[in-house]
C-alpha cells in the first residue's frame, strides 16, 4: 500500500514537468503519461457575488452635480487610534473609499494623504504585498498628474482585491468591501437632501440591490466571527432597505434588446422607490453603523 502511494505521488510529481515540456521535442510516450495523470480539484459549480467599487458611485454623484464635502470623510490623523485587527481591517475599507472620493473629485493633496494612510494600514493588516513595486512606481511616476488620481486609486483598490483573492482571504476582502461600501453609502446619504426622482437619490435607493450581493458574499464566510459580527449590523440595514418597494417603470417586463438606434438597452421591469421617511431611516441607520466603525 505504501509503495502504491509513493508511486502515485511520484507520477503526480513528474506530471507538471511533462506538461511544461509537452511542446518540446520530447518523446511521444511522455505525452501519453500526461493524459494518464489526474489532478484533484474541488467540484466547481460556483456562484460569485461582486460589489461595485466605490469609484463607480463617486464618479456618478460628481457627474450629478453633488459637491465635495471634506467633513464627511474620516480624518487620516485618526488612523493610529484603531488597534485591533478587526478595527484596522474595517477602517482600511473606510479609508479606501475616502481615497476614491478624494480622487474622484481630484482633491490632489487630500488624495496623497489618504493614499499614505491606506498604504500604512495595509502593513498593519498584513496585505502590504498588494502594494507591489510596479504599482508603487506607477503611482509615484504619476504623482504630479491630478488627472491620474482616480486611476491610481483604482489600481491600488483592485490590487488589494487581487491580492486577497490570490491568498484566499475572502473573509478579509468581505470586511474591507463592506466597510468601503458603508462609507460610500454614508457619503452619498449625507450629501443629498430628499428630492424625489433625483439621480443621486435613485442611486442611493438602488443600494438595496447591492446590499443583496454583499450579504450573499458575506454568507460564504459566515463562520468567521468578525464577518458574523458585521453581518448583524448589515442585517439591520437590510431590514430598512427591504421596506423600499419596487415599482414597474413600464408596462412591459425587463428586456435587453436593441433600440431604434441599434444600441442594446437593458430596460423595463421595476425600479426601487424610496419615500422621504425611508430616506431618513436609511440615512439614520447607515450613520449609526458607520459611527461604530470610525468611532
Amino acid at each position, binding site marked *: 500500500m505504501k509503495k502504491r502511494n509513493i508511486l502515485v505521488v511520484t507520477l503526480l510529481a513528474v506530471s507538471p514537468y511533462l506538461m511544461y515540456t509537452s511542446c518540446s521535442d520530447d518523446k511521444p510516450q511522455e505525452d501519453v503519461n500526461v493524459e494518464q495523470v489526474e*489532478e484533484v480539484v474541488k467540484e466547481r*459549480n460556483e456562484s*460569485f457575488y461582486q460589489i461595485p467599487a466605490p469609484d463607480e458611485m463617486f464618479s456618478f454623484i460628481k457627474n450629478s452635480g453633488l459637491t465635495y464635502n471634506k467633513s464627511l470623510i474620516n480624518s487620516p490623523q485618526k488612523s493610529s487610534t484603531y488597534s485591533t485587527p478587526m478595527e484596522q481591517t474595517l477602517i482600511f475599507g473606510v479609508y479606501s473609499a475616502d481615497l476614491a472620493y478624494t480622487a474622484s473629485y481630484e482633491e490632489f493633496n487630500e488624495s496623497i494623504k489618504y493614499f499614505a494612510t491606506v498604504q500604512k494600514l495595509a502593513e498593519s493588516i498584513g496585505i502590504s504585498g498588494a502594494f507591489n513595486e510596479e504599482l508603487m512606481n506607477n503611482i509615484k511616476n504619476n504623482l504630479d498628474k491630478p488627472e491620474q488620481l482616480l486611476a491610481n486609486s483604482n489600481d491600488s483598490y483592485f490590487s488589494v482585491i487581487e491580492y486577497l483573492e*490570490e491568498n484566499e482571504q475572502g473573509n478579509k476582502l468581505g470586511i474591507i468591501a463592506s466597510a468601503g461600501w458603508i462609507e460610500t453609502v454614508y457619503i452619498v446619504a449625507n450629501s443629498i437632501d430628499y428630492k424625489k426622482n433625483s439621480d443621486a437619490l435613485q442611486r442611493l435607493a*438602488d443600494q438595496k440591490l447591492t446590499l443583496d450581493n454583499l450579504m450573499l458574499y458575506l454568507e460564504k464566510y459566515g463562520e468567521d466571527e468578525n464577518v458574523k459580527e458585521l453581518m448583524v449590523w448589515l442585517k439591520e440595514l437590510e431590514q430598512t432597505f427591504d421596506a423600499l418597494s419596487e415599482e414597474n417603470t413600464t408596462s412591459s417586463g*425587463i428586456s*435587453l434588446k436593441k433600440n431604434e438606434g441599434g444600441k442594446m438597452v437593458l430596460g423595463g421591469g421595476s425600479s426601487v422607490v424610496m419615500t422621504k421617511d425611508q430616506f431618513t431611516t436609511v440615512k439614520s441607520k447607515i450613520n449609526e453603523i458607520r459611527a461604530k466603525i470610525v468611532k
Partner: protein
Amino acid sequence: MKNLKNIFLAFLTIVLPILASAQYCNTFHTKYCPPSDNGMYTLNGQSKSALFSKGQTSELNVIVYKGQDYRISLCFDQTLGSQITFKVYETKKVKVEKVIETKTMEDEYQKDENGELAVDEWGAYIPTGNQVEVVNKETITVVEKQKTLLYDNSQDGFATELEFSVETTRRLIFEVSIPGSASGSATKSKLMKSSDMGCVGILVEHMLTPIQGFKGTGF
C-alpha cells in the same frame, strides 16, 4: 526518513505549479480579455477570472447601474473549446404568498341533535373517544429568487462581447457554461485531467451613458 523527504519534495513539485496556475487565472481577464477601444470606458471592479473545468457552469452576480453603459468581454483558455455559452439573467427577490397546510390529530367531541357540540353538566365538551384529522391552513409570505433570461450568446453566434446601456439598476447574473464533461472516471467524479481545465475571464467595463443630441437651452 528518506522516503518522507522524497514525498515532501514531490508534494512541493505538485503544489507549486497548481498554485501558479491558480494565480495565473486570477488576473486572466486583465491580460487576455480585449478591452474596448473607446477610451471613455474604465475597468469595473466586478470583473472576475476563475479556473473552470469542462462541463462546469458558474455564475457571476453583478450590479449594473442606471445611467451607465457596460461592456462585457469574455476570454478563455483554448483547452476549454471554442464555443463557451454565456447567458445574462436578471435576478430579483420576489415576495410570494404561500398556503401552508398542517395536519393534526385532535379529539372528536359528541354533537347534539342540532349538530352543535354537546356539553356535559359542567359545560365541558364530551369526547367520543375517537380522534379526527384536522387540516389547518396558514398563509405566509416567503421571499423567492426569480431569474429571467435576457441574453444567450448561443443565439448570437457565440459572441464574446456584449455592450449595453442600462435604464434601470439591476442585479444581473453572468452565467458561463463550458461544454463537454470532465473525462475522469465516473467513480472519481471529482478527479479530472489538466487538459479538461482552463481559465475563464469576464472583463467588465463601464462609463456614464453618453448624452446624445444637443444639450442646453439653445437659441
